[in-house]
């Protein structure tokens, strides 16, 4: 489509205070009323905004050198372990890294929020000591001002659209999409719909690498296509960086998802220059036109069942219809803050403090988001276990011997009335009992039984069998009730098939 203005021309207008800027929400009505041709003529810039939990995020810090200097090997910030595989006093703090005791209540995201709120943070580091960095221990208190660089790094933000989550199970589940009530009791979604940056520029004509953006209340930049960028399914993402020293806790806030982990809310806004009528039309996209699949998060698989296709208009109404049942639905991201970000960005441009940038490279339009390649599926104990042959503690040796012959097994598990494991006896134990004249099962069985859990992989089972020099592992549940038995014969037969 033929361009009617350039980014340079728009920046000139911004400098003079003449640029016409509207938010993506306002643009929907303008395009509806006036049509895209008139809208393109009248509007120079459309501002977008979004604010959601960004688990991919973290921050790079440089602390400067102590005297004597240290090459930090292990380090924590307010008790949260930071990644130290960098240079001597550089580190990376991930937002999902949790405090060892406070768990979901406090993580890397909270440390970043406290730093930008001006609070003091405790740094504790240990090292092995080198000739050039002799120091082995360091403990100090820092604020954001004390750091040389503090850079927010968010490898995946601004998902063009996202799934809606609900739960078919008859119990509450706790997920990264929040607390989901039993039997489709509620649903959650993410994304700002018509305000979402990439939905307003779905062909990535103006949003690309190098763009200056609103990030966490300050200025940030798009530095790459985002991880898991999936343009063909309209699930594009961007990677962004920004200076934490400019950011505000209102737009960058630590988050706790009970049962899942910690994270951080990141506010982001991108201006879209209306270079042609096509862009005016695209930025006029409404909530109805942006689709979201309602997925059953009770199914813990990569591909969760799609229950229906909805759109952001239905989602924003607060109810989503599923098989004649109205389910209450709310976002996990913030619509109010998204609107606010688009308004702040609009004000910045109107005031002449924020200028637009052309991308230095465009985002990929054909990248495929691949699943993880797994070279060999490792079977689990529950998949390879046999039915366990059991007996009671009161059974005599003859009965157990008969079971071993009748069932053609080498191991008999001794259990109580509730099938809780008490011991195990082998054909060798029985032979020994006959040879030594013992008649009571409790005298010959092994009481400290090595067991395994149903979800343990066959590797773990093989390791246990070898380490303890045994030939079978009872598989028990949380209450120590027997649910099967993994034998070395079975593992051998699996290997021989390969």
């Amino acid at each position: 489509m033929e361009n009617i203005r350039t980014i340079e021309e728009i920046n000139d207008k911004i400098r003079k205070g003449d640029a016409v800027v509207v938010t993506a929400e306002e643009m929907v009505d303008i395009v509806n009323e006036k049509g895209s041709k008139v809208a393109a003529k009248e509007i120079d810039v459309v501002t977008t905004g979004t604010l959601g939990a960004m688990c991919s995020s973290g921050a790079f810090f440089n602390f400067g050198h102590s005297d004597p200097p240290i090459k930090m090997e292990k380090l924590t910030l307010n008790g949260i372990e930071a990644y130290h595989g960098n240079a001597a006093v550089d580190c990376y703090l991930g937002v999902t890294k949790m405090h060892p005791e406070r768990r979901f209540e406090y993580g890397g995201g909270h440390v970043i929020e406290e730093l930008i709120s001006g609070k003091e943070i405790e740094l504790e580091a240990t090292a092995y000591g080198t000739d050039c960095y002799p120091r082995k221990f360091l403990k100090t208190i820092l604020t954001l001002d004390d750091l040389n660089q503090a850079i927010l790094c968010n490898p995946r933000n601004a998902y063009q659209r996202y799934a809606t989550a609900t739960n078919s199970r008859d119990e509450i589940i706790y997920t990264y999409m929040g607390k989901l009530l039993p039997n489709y009791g509620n649903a959650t979604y993410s994304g700002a719909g018509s305000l979402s940056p990439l939905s307003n520029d779905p062909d990535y004509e103006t949003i690309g690498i190098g763009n200056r953006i609103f990030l966490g209340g300050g200025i940030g930049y798009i530095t790459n296509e985002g991880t898991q960028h999936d343009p063909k399914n309209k699930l594009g993402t961007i990677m962004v960086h920004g200076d934490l020293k400019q950011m505000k806790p209102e737009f960058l806030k630590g988050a706790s998802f009970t049962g899942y982990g910690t994270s951080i809310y990141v506010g982001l806004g991108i201006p879209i220059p209306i270079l042609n009528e096509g862009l005016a039309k695209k930025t006029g996209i409404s909530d109805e036109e942006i689709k979201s699949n309602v997925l059953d998060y009770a199914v813990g698989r990569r591909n969760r069942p799609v229950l229906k296709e909805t759109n952001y208009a239905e989602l924003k109404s607060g109810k989503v219809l599923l098989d004649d049942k109205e389910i209450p639905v709310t976002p996990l991201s913030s619509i109010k803050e998204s609107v606010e970000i688009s308004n702040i960005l609009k004000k910045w441009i109107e005031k002449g403090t924020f200028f637009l940038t052309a991308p230095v490279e465009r985002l990929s339009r054909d990248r495929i988001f691949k699943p993880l390649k797994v070279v060999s599926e490792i079977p689990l104990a529950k998949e390879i276990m046999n039915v366990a042959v059991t007996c009671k503690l009161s059974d005599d040796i003859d009965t157990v011997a008969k079971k071993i012959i009748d069932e053609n097994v080498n191991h008999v598990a001794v259990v109580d009335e509730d099938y809780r494991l008490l011991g195990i006896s082998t054909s060798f134990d029985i032979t020994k009992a006959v040879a030594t004249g013992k008649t009571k099962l409790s005298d010959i069985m092994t009481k400290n039984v090595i067991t395994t859990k149903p979800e343990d992989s066959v590797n773990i089972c093989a390791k246990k069998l070898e380490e303890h020099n045994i030939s079978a592992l009872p598989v028990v549940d949380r209450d120590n009730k027997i649910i099967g038995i993994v034998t070395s014969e079975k593992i051998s037969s699996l290997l021989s098939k390969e």
Partner: protein
Amino acid sequence: MKVALRIKTENVTDPIISNVILEKKARINILSAQVNEKGGKVLLEVPDEKTEEIVKAFRDFGVEVEVGKIIEILKDKCMECGHCITLCPVDAIFFEKDYAIGLDENKCIQCRACLDCCPTRAIKLYG
């Protein structure tokens, strides 16, 4: 009116609430009650016109009483996502027109369903 009680451990087996109901001839609705090693926590709905005398009666039995404020959404923490809205069984939390979070304190029954769902832990219960 909502009234929150804190009953001492040594008094949790006393029929304090029954005594107050009979003594004050008041229709008191027990919205929630929890007893643990720290004592008892009870949330009541009491008739507005009798609140004052009921509160006094509980205090006379040695019960700590808090009247009125039972829930607050801390504005500096809240990101206004609205996840709590779908968890609230009595519609005490809702979206305002501009997607700000609204709260009708009178409806809250302190069921606690919203507490662990809030990503920024912005909801505070009193009493």
